[in-house]
């Protein structure tokens, strides 16, 4: 089977193979072309770009990896990961309040986020089970709803019902968390745990090891019974149910795992940033992570670890070079930034439309195949006679 796949890939001239590759991965190809054009225009040195990419890869990969499990389970892109990010942020607020420093602070924030993420993930899974086939849009709206509750808790509950001892965290009125929380106690605690400098580039080795651990977990998880059940559900929910798999329960577990990982990922993300934007940091996370994984060549129904890394690199390359390229080409960095936003979110739309179009075509082809089966079988019989 694997050999067949390999042979199929190697059929044709190199140009034909290249064309097939472009057709199979149009979004990464588009981004590679834009990046190749924008890098020289930006005027940034390769060393600077590599340094920036290394930092951003460490910052975002964990969050983007959290999207893989629901995709395996056929639940599409988990826009509900924002809820996990909220749990991570609540953990960080408590750790800052209690003045817990360094790695213990980070791990404690992760542990605090765990029960919240499990609870949020369970609720999300329950709701998504009621909206089968519309998981993405449901998750997207759910994130808005959850944001309202998060703001209610953080803006009114903290400092009044939930005790916050650190005055620097609380608004001057006596309750509610300030708009920006300085994470000085845990700032880059993981990034600087094992400091490595290679060819003048600072590499956050400990963070990369943590990300590698998650990659191994995902690879291992795919091979477990639960992972196989999720794959079966992802391929055909009805067949999986007929085979005796507890579809709804497995889907909930997939979302819980994704939400928990998103919570931990948000802690890793925020320790790198060093400042928590209490009411906004989580809002963009879902969109950014989903854009990154789609840019990496993943689809709504299929995602691999390599899509995550390629996506983060390409997406963030655009982040780095487009303002400067815009400034150098048009004379305004803002136009470059607008261009990046336009292209990045345009890509999400293109990827989703392309996926829907591909599925439609596949269905049409399957239908046409069924229709042709009668006459072609008949023709074959005639030839035999």
């Amino acid at each position, binding site marked *: 089977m694997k050999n067949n796949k390999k042979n199929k890939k190697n059929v044709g001239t190199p140009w034909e193979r290249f064309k097939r590759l472009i057709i199979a991965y149009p979004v990464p190809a588009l981004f590679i072309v834009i990046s190749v054009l924008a890098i020289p225009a930006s005027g940034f040195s390769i060393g600077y770009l590599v340094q920036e990419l290394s930092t951003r890869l460490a910052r975002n990969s964990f969050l983007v990896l959290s999207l893989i499990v629901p995709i395996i389970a056929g639940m599409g892109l988990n826009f509900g990961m924002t809820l996990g990010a909220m749990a991570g942020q609540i953990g960080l607020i408590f750790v800052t309040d209690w003045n*817990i*420093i360094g790695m*213990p602070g980070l791990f*404690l924030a992760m*542990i605090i986020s765990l029960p919240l993420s499990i609870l949020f993930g369970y609720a999300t899974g329950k709701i998504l089970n009621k909206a089968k086939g519309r998981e993405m849009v449901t998750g997207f709206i759910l994130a808005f709803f959850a944001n309202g509750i998060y703001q209610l808790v953080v803006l009114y509950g903290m400092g009044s019902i939930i005790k916050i001892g650190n005055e620097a965290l609380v608004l001057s009125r006596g309750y509610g968390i300030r708009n920006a929380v300085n994470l000085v106690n845990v700032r880059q605690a993981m990034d600087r745990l094992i400091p490595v400098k290679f060819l003048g580039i600072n590499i956050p080795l400990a963070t990369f090891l943590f990300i590698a651990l998650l990659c191994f977990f995902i690879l291992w998880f795919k091979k477990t019974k639960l992972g196989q059940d999720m794959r079966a559900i992802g391929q055909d929910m009805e067949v999986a149910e007929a085979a005796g798999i507890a579809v709804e329960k497995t889907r909930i577990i997939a979302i819980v795992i994704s939400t928990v990982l998103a919570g931990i990922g948000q802690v890793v993300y925020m320790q790198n940033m060093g400042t928590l934007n209490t009411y906004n940091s989580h809002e963009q996370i879902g969109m950014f992570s989903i854009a990154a994984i789609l840019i990496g060549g993943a689809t709504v129904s299929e995602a691999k670890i390599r899509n995550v890394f390629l996506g983060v690199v390409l997406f963030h390359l655009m982040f780095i070079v487009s303002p400067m390229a815009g400034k150098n080409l048009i004379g305004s960095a803002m136009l470059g930034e607008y261009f990046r936003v336009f292209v990045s979110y345009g890509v999400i739309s293109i990827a989703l439309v392309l996926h829907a179009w591909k599925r439609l075509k596949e269905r049409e082809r399957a239908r046409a195949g069924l229709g042709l089966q009668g006459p072609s079988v008949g023709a074959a019989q005639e030839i035999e006679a």
Partner: protein
Amino acid sequence: MNRKLLIRSAVVLVLIMVAVFLFIIGKGYTLLLDNKDFEYGGKTYEAFEMVKVRVDREEPIELYPRDRDMVMVSGKAHTIGITVYNKNYDEIGTRELKFRLKGKGSMFLLSMPAFGAELEPWFAPFKTPEL
């Protein structure tokens, strides 16, 4: 079913224990290193002409008379080492001690002259004076 519940409860218990452990070892404290005259038992212990203070593995801090500096540390157990110099910056003595922060609060005042004189109350919880 019971076995499952038992395992889950054990996992939750372990997580709580790890969280408590992380809280204890990661709790941050501000140490104010003070090189001012220290009065104790009717006697005045004068500030050092120059003293280098090293807390744990932090970079040493130089203090001159009436100087006060601060270091952030995590956990309650620490090591402090001082090297005392005279007016001509010749080394005249050193002292190193492993100690545990006692008392409530997250800020402690460490008196260098008291520490140099091996007095027992050489550190105490510090409260920011209210204006």
